[in-house]
């Protein structure tokens, strides 16, 4: 998945309020979270290690 897509819903992230960070568990996978998924606390999953957040 390209870096600018939300890991939960797949939407392309453009607006403010989004966050991109390395997976807290493995540090390899990149997690993207769009504003709406952050607002609704939608779970995300690291593609590299399978870590599930938030």
């Amino acid at each position, binding site marked *: 998945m390209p870096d600018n897509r939300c890991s939960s819903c797949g939407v392309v992230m453009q607006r*403010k*309020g*989004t*966050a*991109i*960070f*390395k997976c*807290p*568990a493995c*540090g390899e996978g990149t*997690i993207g*979270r769009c*504003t709406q998924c*952050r*607002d*609704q*606390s939608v779970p995300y999953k690291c593609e590299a290690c399978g*870590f599930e*957040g*938030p």
Partner: protein
Amino acid sequence: MEGSENPEEALLIPEDQYLTSGVHIGTQQKSADMKPFIYKIRTDGLYVLDIQKTDDRIRGAGKFLARYEPEQILVVAARQYGQKPAKVFARTIGAKIFAGRFVPGTLTNPDLPMFTEPDIIVVTDPAADQQALKEALNVGIPIIGLCDANNETKFVDFIIPTNNKGRRALAMIYWLLTRQVLKERGTLKDLSGFELAVEDFEATL
């Protein structure tokens, strides 16, 4: 104060130390967001948090924070009992601290003298530190939150389920977090080399 460190199932400290500090004690209300972290409901109506998940998340948060430059981490604590533990945590790991009232614009208004641009933020209570949470959201940085059973986890990117109201619980969580961050950075060779005590993190009554 030492736990075995290698196996995944083992806790960072013995279970009874977690229990005596009250890290697992939740609230009488639960939020849907925190449901996965709740172990059971006590007969007096208090929700009990899952210690194993708290422990896992402290390990995770240690790894997560260790990847950032110390001065790029911002710790926020508006809650009275959270201020001292947060200050000691921030001082020990070299992070910035905002204890007490969070001045609006700290993360968004470059004209303010206290303006700062961290890469990651740690909030002691997402409900009490709402202003910091909103500003972190606006600037697009990841948020680590200490969440109790009644907290909404909106905008939080990494939840540490814990009692975030108790004096000793907050001291214990920040003590564990400090030790874990230093270990992940390689500053501490092993956990027994950590010199601060949990009492050093406790707020005075």
